[in-house]
């Protein structure tokens, strides 16, 4: 009896499962077909509206004419295609017109209703007609807020706000400001992104307030989202963020300083910035307040802003920050000095080559390399003279990674004072066992002068690999190379060529074997600064 019941139960379960299989399979087919129809319609709409949209974008048709031409887009596929086309045709010059057209086509109304509901949408749309103001807008009723936070209710609103955030600043502002009060974090995030995209100076205080909330109140918006929005501002609008640099919360000051730094970096790609590109208020805030801020991260980031001032005050500020007790301030001020203008700071940067923290040493090497010929020369001279192991290794690392070795070889081949300096640098590297790259150049470089210079240099610290290469070269047909190789081999065997004592390894010693690394070689482990970057 019991078994029969089990059998019946299982039977009905089988029927249920098989029916569900069929239902989902049919749904799968239906979805495919409906999507296919949707995209056919969308493609047709793209084709149909291409000319009117192009004409509007080029200014050949006015808003009224375009509204009449595009007003027949009714289906979701057509509306979506049209919205995409208009947004991609939008640029800084015609953004206002495109937004106005979308407003007249009813798209803004549609998105506003989807994002805020009929009532609030009506109030917000009224702001454009001068009937209402933002302050009158409503928020979601408290008891329904948990529902509005669910994904199923959030996604349509977030999508609508995303579209509204792509309108011009004038049209987007009321909607984005209202969306900042949405119960869902996803909608608020999209609104913040929209505010960044519109980079409207009037909304900057709102973004700074969002930043404060993200820092102080554990808001459900991420700091990175708010910072990305702040980065949407341009250099000419950056004064709108100035209150953030003097905010009482130190992390707010840091995020704003870092954002301004990155805005400057972006602007500097297009043109060479000077202090004239900044307002006096910002200039003095950086020099007089940020430089002496109690929070080291603010001091560190402000050094990057100051570098774009390119004046004596900036030099003084960077020089001061390079002596800072905090390693990150030193690191960033050294990095900020990587510009030809700051050649006066070369002695200060040289001092940082022996900094106790490897990140600062690395930054100093990179800065000197990029500061121009003077910086590079100073770096070479320092490298030849120094006995600081860590500084030497850091310099070697940079020389290899950035292709300086090729430049050194070219200078060696050219001769003269530069050639002599290059030869000394190369010899010192060889004495440290950093020979892999030079060895590969010896076998691959076509220049006889370079090959001869390299043979002499590598003979300073002859490794097994070098001796093997010499043996191969000495058996080559080319008379000059083979005789030079034989000559160097002879010197190595007699042991007469070794100039640098401590770091050398003789052929056959463990330090010269591949895999073991030399005393200063690839396997060296640095434990002076385990905290990393």
């Amino acid at each position, binding site marked *: 009896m019991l078994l029969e019941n089990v*059998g019946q139960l*299982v*039977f009905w*379960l*089988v029927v249920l*499962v*098989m029916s*569900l*299989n069929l239902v*989902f*399979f049919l749904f*799968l087919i239906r*979805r*495919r077909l409906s999507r296919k129809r949707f995209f056919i319609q969308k493609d047709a709409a793209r084709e149909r509206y291409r000319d009117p949209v192009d004409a509007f974008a080029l200014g050949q048709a006015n808003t009224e004419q375009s509204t009449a031409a595009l007003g027949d887009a009714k289906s979701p596929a057509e509306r979506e295609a049209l919205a995409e086309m208009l947004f991609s045709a939008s640029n800084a010059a015609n953004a206002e017109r495109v937004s106005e057209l979308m407003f007249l086509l009813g798209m803004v109304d549609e998105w506003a209703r989807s994002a805020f509901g009929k009532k609030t949408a009506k109030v917000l749309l009224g702001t454009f007609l001068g009937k209402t103001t933002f302050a009158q807008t409503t928020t979601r009723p408290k008891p329904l807020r948990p529902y509005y936070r669910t994904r199923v209710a959030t*996604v349509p609103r*977030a*999508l609508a706000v*995303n579209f509204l955030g792509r309108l011009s600043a004038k049209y987007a502002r009321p909607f984005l400001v209202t969306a900042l009060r949405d119960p869902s*974090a996803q909608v608020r*995030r*999209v609104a913040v*992104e929209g505010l960044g*995209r519109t980079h409207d100076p009037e909304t900057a205080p709102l973004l700074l307030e969002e930043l404060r909330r*993200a820092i102080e109140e554990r808001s459900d*918006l*991420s*700091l*990175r*989202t708010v*910072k*990305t929005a702040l*980065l949407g501002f341009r250099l000419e609008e950056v004064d709108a963020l100035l209150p953030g640099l003097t905010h009482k919360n130190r992390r707010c000051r840091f995020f704003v300083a870092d954002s301004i730094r*990155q805005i400057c970096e972006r602007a500097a790609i297009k043109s060479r910035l000077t202090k004239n590109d900044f307002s006096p208020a910002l200039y003095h805030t950086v020099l007089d307040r940020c430089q002496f801020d109690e929070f080291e991260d603010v001091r560190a980031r402000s050094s990057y802003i100051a570098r774009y001032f390119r004046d004596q005050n900036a030099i003084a500020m960077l020089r001061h920050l390079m002596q800072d007790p905090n390693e990150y301030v030193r690191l960033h001020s050294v990095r900020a000095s990587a510009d030809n203008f700051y050649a006066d700071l070369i002695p200060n940067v040289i001092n940082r080559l022996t900094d106790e923290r490897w990140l600062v040493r690395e930054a100093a090497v990179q800065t000197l390399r990029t500061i121009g010929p003077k910086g590079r020369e100073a770096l070479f001279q320092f490298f030849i003279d120094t006995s600081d192991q860590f500084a030497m290794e*850091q310099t*070697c*690392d940079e020389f*290899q*990674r*950035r*292709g300086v070795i*090729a430049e050194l070889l070219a200078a060696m081949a050219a001769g003269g004072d530069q050639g002599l300096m290059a030869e000394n640098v190369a010899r010192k590297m060889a004495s440290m066992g*950093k*020979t*892999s*790259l030079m*060895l590969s*150049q010896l076998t691959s470089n076509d220049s006889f002068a370079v090959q001869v210079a390299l043979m002499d240099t590598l003979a300073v610290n002859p490794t097994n690999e070098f001796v093997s290469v010499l043996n191969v070269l000495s058996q080559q047909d080319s008379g000059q190379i083979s005789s030079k190789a034989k000559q160097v081999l002879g010197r190595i065997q007699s042991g007469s060529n070794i100039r640098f004592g401590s770091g050398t390894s003789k052929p056959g010693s463990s330090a010269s074997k*591949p895999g*073991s*690394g*030399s005393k200063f070689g*690839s*396997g*060296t*482990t640095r*434990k002076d*600064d*385990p905290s*990393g*970057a």
Partner: protein
Amino acid sequence: MHRILLRTLDYANLIILIYFIVANGVYTMLMAISLYAVTLHSRFAAHTGYSDIADSPATPPITLIVPAFNEEGVITTTIHALLRLEYPEKEIVVVDDGSTDGTLRRLISEFNLKRMDLIYRERIPSKAPWGYFLNPEIPGLLVLAKENGGKAESLNTGLNMCRSPFFCTVDADSIVERKALLRLMAPIMHANVNTIVSGGLVRIANGCTMVNGEVTEIGLPATWLERCQVVEYIRTFLFGRPAWNFLKGNFITSGAFCLIHRESAILAGGFGKDTVTEDIDMIAALHTFYEKKGWVSQMVFTTDPVCWTECPRKFSMLARQRRRWQLGLVQTAFKHDRLIFNWKQGRLGLLSMPFHAYVEAFGSVVETLGLIILPLSLIVGAMPLSLFLLIMFLAIGYGTLLSVISILLAEATIRRYPKPSDMFTLVLYAFLENFGYRQIVSAIRAQGVFQFLFGKKRWEVVTHKGVEA
């Protein structure tokens, strides 16, 4: 004697029945959650771009660590694809783990790399590289050559050379889609909680058309073994993991394509060498570390970053791969058993870990036992033929249902199979895989469990031909 046998079979059938109900109950819950989460996420993702992340200087740099052992056939294709990835700031560190084929040679010649003597700062114990290869004209690519020490050690070596705040592990036989890194970083950028792991979708590349390391046409492979694996991957990645992510119970993230916070990984001790699935071990180690410290963090999984990988074409290779995965899962479950039923871990400790440990890790043994016990019950008369057939139909029907819903979820994602014929083939294989494939895979997984019980710990190497080849 016969009565004792019948009684024993009754008890065994009861255990199998309980397992069947528990496992399928959880699967049903996961299925419902995935349908909700994946469709809504896909709808939003389809309408929003990633330009904000791509253009923002606030986007953190990433180092892609690619451990490679005897990957001569695929390595250059993989690296070319990685170099083309759309991401503001990235570095690729390839770690050649003492390959005995021409992996290193191919890398050197393809990218004109030069050997250098660079600084190695060891923060996690691992063998230091004997060679560093770099081309100053491609500063974003660094190749390290070290003695063979296993995948975990290679990853640790790469981690020691990593400078960015996040690193992404990528298998040498995998192809990462152009925008995948941006998509993987998106949840980290948008989270208000410290997000330490972000995992993406891994899909099978067999049958797809690839040009210069990029999937240009999505298609299905030709053989039944590969097609069954396609269905299996879709099921695993589209209804298991999104649901656990929704429940905040992420435990498994594929090491083939996974973004991890560097400092957290280092503080958690790096990749463990005592399991054969270093990726799961790392996730568990991070959960444990953060719990001990009392720090708040989260791990996320999203379905839009896609990485394509080659699945085994031969049965012997499939068996090796699945045995290793199962062995690794059991090893990790035992190693991190404090996570199981740990209320401090929330849903991970109370739901996800027990499910993975008891159903996913040891379930294969029960399933394999069922394959023997049920027919035996029929033979000795402990179960009528009608009930036996109904149970079989139910198991097959339910298995098919899970797979069909997964295919539906795949339809909702951006990179679905475009041809209608491929969709029908997938549905057909969702049904056919229940006749042989699933049973064989269960038996192989059970073998992995027994390997663990008998103290065997061996990395079984799976060789690849290369999809483009």
